[in-house]
């Protein structure tokens, strides 16, 4: 992804130092992580309900 400043020199960095600072990537990662969490909650809930159904039969 590369260093988020024009020169690869820490002396020039006064603020944000994370990957993708100043660009769109941090927002994209946040959006992806939210989607993953929602999907996993949905999928895990399905599995849990299947277990309840199996126990009830």
């Amino acid at each position, binding site marked *: 992804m590369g260093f988020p400043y024009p020169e690869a*020199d*820490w*002396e020039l960095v006064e603020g944000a130092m994370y990957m*993708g600072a100043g660009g769109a990537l941090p927002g994209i990662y946040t959006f992806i992580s939210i989607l993953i969490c929602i999907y996993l909650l949905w999928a895990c809930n399905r599995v849990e309900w299947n277990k309840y159904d199996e126990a009830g039969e």
Partner: protein
Amino acid sequence: MEAQIAELTARIAELESKASVTNTMFAETYYYLSIPLMIIIHAGFLAYEMGATRMKNVLSSGMKNILAFAFMVPTFYWFGWWVYWGFPTGITFSAGPAGISGAEYANAIALGWGESAQYMGPNIADQASGVFWGAFTLFACTTASIMSGAVIERIQTVGFTICAIVLGSFAWVVAAAWGWHADGWLVTKFGVHDFGAAGLVHAVAGFFALGVLVNLGPRIGKFNSDGTANNLRGHNLPFTVTGLMLIMVGFWGFLMACVIVPGEAWSWYPDKATTIYGTPMTLSALSFNILMGMGGGIIGSYAYTRDPFWMMSGCLAGLISVASGLDLYWPSLTFIIALGAGILLKPAADVLERWGIDDAVGAVTVHGTIGIYALVVLGIFASGFPALQGAEGEVAQISLIGQIVGAIVFFLLGFVPGYIVSWILNAVGMLRVPDAVQEAGLDPVKVTAQAYPEGIPNSPPAGT
């Protein structure tokens, strides 16, 4: 007017002196407090592996873990600390570009005799050496604890202790000198970045354990004649899970000790905290990324296993998976990487089991495999970041190739010494507990105390 200037100058000098004392006390206290926090890691590993042990072996498992801690302290004092300062440039023992390494430098500050003894004992003019040495000693204890769980229920106590000394006071220290020191050749030549020691502590310890496991062999009853594995359940899963949570608490101390505070003669900057490489770092960065790593790891393991043991192992794996770049990751990316580690964990452990390796607590996977994953993933996402302080073109940058080189070196620094020392111990009969003793249980044979003299009765609740 002159008198006023003189008075003002004197007051400024007084204030500077007070500020200096305050900063020095802060720096000393900062590392001092990281030490008991890291002892919580050891307490956690103790609970973790005792819980994962069958009842007949509980105390002997705990005893060897306690002994690992005890032997790590003096051996790291006698030679481990010297290795860290002497080895950074490789086996030439020469001084590196930062001038804080090599045999001459190590002889001057890290030996318990001669001129350097002044830095290795109580000294009113030195408020740094003892706390740094203490923090590094606890890093060493962590490596020994990582191995300890993998080999439970069939390793001899003294044989294990010798393995622990080789790992904790030599193997990982060489890795730290090479990849966790501003003069380390992996850093200066390849730009290896491993802020939170995912490779040089976790991977080295995990693969050292693998080297030992190859020679040690599985517990009796672990594998059937057709090669399929049995699950030798520990006697107390809640104890194991609580131990894992204690480990997570202790890692806040471990990771805070990876930060170099500002304002001292040995600091990189007068006003900015840094990593051990001299690159910028803040405790806020740690807080963001440690917590996101833990959360991601637990969720990944939950999604894949729904097993509390693997969920808490996933918590640890999540943190390890991002430890190399806790200073550089964006928190949501941390979460995604850690979630991947949590999912990867159980299948990776299953592969090891299919190869006939009996790793009782999954240490090779959690620490070894995930440690390597951490190094490589950082190489993908952080390529181009300066690995050290210095202008572009003058210092190495983080790269995928560099991180892979680091991963290979750390794997070898773990596996090879682990294999060799355990091979020698096995050859002289000091490694594996005899089969008859394993079947009878290690505690009844060699421990003078009893873990549960009244058993674990299923007591009825009080009547209403």
